């Protein structure tokens, strides 16, 4: 519905990092995570400026309701992963749960599986957040 359609006709220039099939899976994972938890999950894949954490938090701040949002920011070139949870979301996804999800994601990314890692991470974070 959302992400799956973005790259069906890729624009000129470098393409997005995912194939259409991966986008569909990602879209489904995002929708399930949002629907089951009531939080807003968001995934950013691209370079992050230094300081990386600050940039990720800035992106998170641009979401409509940062307090209830979770941002997963992945920079494949810098090999950095940031998970940012808002003030409310943090109560449901504690930092150690986020770290656990980050570990699984980093393991998948280290094997070259970007989409798989993101989906695993979303699943874990949504599980930790529990039902709304």
């Amino acid at each position, binding site marked *: 519905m959302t992400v799956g359609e973005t790259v069906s006709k890729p624009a000129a220039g470098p393409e997005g990092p995912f194939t259409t099939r991966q986008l569909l899976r990602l879209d489904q994972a995002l929708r399930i995570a949002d629907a089951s938890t009531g939080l807003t999950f968001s995934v950013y894949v691209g370079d992050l400026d230094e300081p990386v954490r600050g940039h990720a938090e800035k992106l998170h701040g641009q979401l409509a309701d940062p307090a209830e949002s979770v941002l997963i920011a992945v920079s494949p070139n810098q090999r950095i992963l940031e998970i940012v949870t808002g003030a409310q979301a943090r109560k449901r996804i504690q930092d150690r749960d986020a770290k656990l*999800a980050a570990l699984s994601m980093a393991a998948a990314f280290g094997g070259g*599986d970007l989409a798989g890692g993101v989906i695993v991470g979303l699943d874990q974070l949504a599980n930790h957040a529990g039902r709304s």
Partner: protein
Amino acid sequence: MSPIETVFFFVGIPALIVLLVGGLAYAFGGRRGSARRYRPGRPFEATPVWFLSAPERVTGADQRRAVAGAAQAPAISTGEVETGRAAVPQGTTGGASDRW
């Protein structure tokens, strides 16, 4: 079987089949998508993307939407983020970081 027939059956036909299969694989197989496959440690050239299940939840999403269309997720470049609206004060955010 004459020697010519023998050569035809045991060399000609197998060679034809090998060429046919090879040609088909070359024409259709290709390693499509391998260019954007991510390999850790190698440069990865891809447009930055930002996914949400509900794109309208990004403030100012309409201006940053790379492709027009209501149901499409905004794709933003890192440069554009800097010029965006002042971010909501963060100080209470949590989360985690990792490297690989």
